[in-house]
């Protein structure tokens, strides 16, 4: 029987790792909501949440509890199945990307080499791209199934925004691929470990990717699908209870994952300067590498929040003009220059 010839230790190891990564994403997303409000308060010279627990640290739990116990309303003239499917897709897709991110180097526990990456597929970057392109379905289906004109308008906006910003994102990634010559995120990190970080070679590419990441996460200044002053809250207008919570939560998970991605692809991932000269043991190296990646990710999350509370929202035509007339030509130029330089270096 081939069915029983599965390496059970491998299976258990992967299940543990997947659970760990999921829990990490959820906890970080949870505390991002707290962080967002604290950062907002700091920027606006307020105090922020400070009632639940010390420094308001229990606030996310209180919010989650509140969402769970709120009345669940499904509008009468909506498609019930699709109405529930929308937030489920949003949440599931948000949790999927973390599978290909290398969280740290391999560890050795009880004689077993354990890779701290759920799947080192040789198409890692494309996998992420594929999952990101699925993300829009949650918003579209949810907005349409609500049977509300504001929700529908929001989902139409979301679809065109995400498709428009996927293009420069892909073009920026192509330039990075030309440089690294691999699609595996693990190899990209290993290259940066022994060389300069990719952001040094790809400053323009990184900047384009950063802007597109903001747009793909629906964060300010690109949060048009949930513009409250013109669309009454946008695609989640009819949602209540935990289904609303899923939509909001998915945004924070997306933010965490895209921060981790940017840190991995452009800022060395789990590699940090002089890491091989410290003489640390393999396990310590993996642990400090994970900490380095985590700190870089948190810095990016802070950047997301900083921008949100600093820059006002774009108008819709400005958003489209920025995507098609500025970012795509810039990304194309970046790709061309990178290609020429790579060719020049090889000869």
């Amino acid at each position, binding site marked *: 029987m081939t069915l029983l010839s599965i390496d059970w230790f491998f299976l258990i190891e992967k299940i543990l790792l997947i659970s760990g990564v999921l829990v990490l994403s959820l906890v970080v997303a949870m505390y991002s909501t707290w962080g967002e409000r604290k950062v907002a308060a700091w920027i606006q010279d307020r105090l922020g949440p400070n009632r639940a627990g010390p420094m308001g640290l229990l606030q996310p739990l209180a919010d989650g509890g509140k969402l769970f116990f709120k009345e669940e309303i499904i509008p009468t003239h909506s498609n019930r199945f699709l109405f529930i499917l929308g937030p489920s897709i949003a949440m599931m897709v948000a949790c999927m990307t973390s599978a290909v991110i290398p969280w740290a180097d391999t560890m050795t526990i009880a004689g077993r080499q354990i890779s701290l990456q759920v799947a080192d597929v*040789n*198409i890692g970057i*494309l996998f992420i791209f594929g999952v990101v392109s699925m993300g829009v379905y949650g918003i*579209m*289906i949810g907005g349409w199934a609500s049977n509300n004109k504001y929700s529908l308008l929001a989902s*139409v906006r979301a*679809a065109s925004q995400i498709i428009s910003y996927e293009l420069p994102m892909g073009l920026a990634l192509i330039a990075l691929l030309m440089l690294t010559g691999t699609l595996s995120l693990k190899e990209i990190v290993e290259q940066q470990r022994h060389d300069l970080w990719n952001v040094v070679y790809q400053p323009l590419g990184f900047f384009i990717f950063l802007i597109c990441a903001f747009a793909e996460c629906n964060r300010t200044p690109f949060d048009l699908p949930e513009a409250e002053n013109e669309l009454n809250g946008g695609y989640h207008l009819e949602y209540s209870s935990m289904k609303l919570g899923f939509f909001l939560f998915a945004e924070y998970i997306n933010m965490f994952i895209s921060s981790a991605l940017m840190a991995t692809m452009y800022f060395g991932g789990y590699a940090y300067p002089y890491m091989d000269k410290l003489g640390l043991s393999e396990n310590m190296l993996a642990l400090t590498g994970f900490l380095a990646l985590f700190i870089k990710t948190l810095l990016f999350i802070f950047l997301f929040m900083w921008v949100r509370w600093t820059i006002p929202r774009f108008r819709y035509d400005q958003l489209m003009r920025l995507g098609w007339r500025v970012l795509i030509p810039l990304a194309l130029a970046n790709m061309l220059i990178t290609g020429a330089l790579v060719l020049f270096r090889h000869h």
Partner: protein
Amino acid sequence: MGMSTQQIIFMVLSLVALVSALGVVLSKNPVTSVLCLIVTFFAIAGHYVMLNAQFLAVVHIIVYAGAIMVLFLYVMMLMNLNSEIEPQKRNWLKYAGAVSGGALLVVLVAALRDASVPALSESSVEIGLIHNLGKLLFTQYVVPFEVSSILFLSAMVGAVVIGKKD
């Protein structure tokens, strides 16, 4: 008789693909049809992975499920189609459709019956990986590759010309 894991996965994927493809044709609601088609694409991408063609699988997802179907859904949602107000097709049109569809099936079966479809051989298991695919596309098949890119370019120019306000 025990089935190998691969056979089981193949069966499940095929079942999902067939059921969702039937859903595309049989569903009354066009939005449900589009969603069924997306599920079909995922099942087919699963088949690509089974053939060790991961690149093809992911590109299939990105291009078809991720971009083209989003635009389909976009149009369907805005058209507000409804089975009640949908004009009914004439009967002869339905019969003509059934007959021509059946004729196409016969032609396809006749064409494929004698064609030797090479199964995945030992030497070609690596062919779908991105490294080999890229090498092959830019050496052996470089002319068709470039010709198809010109085709895409002309389609893009055409779209811009049509979309431009005069």
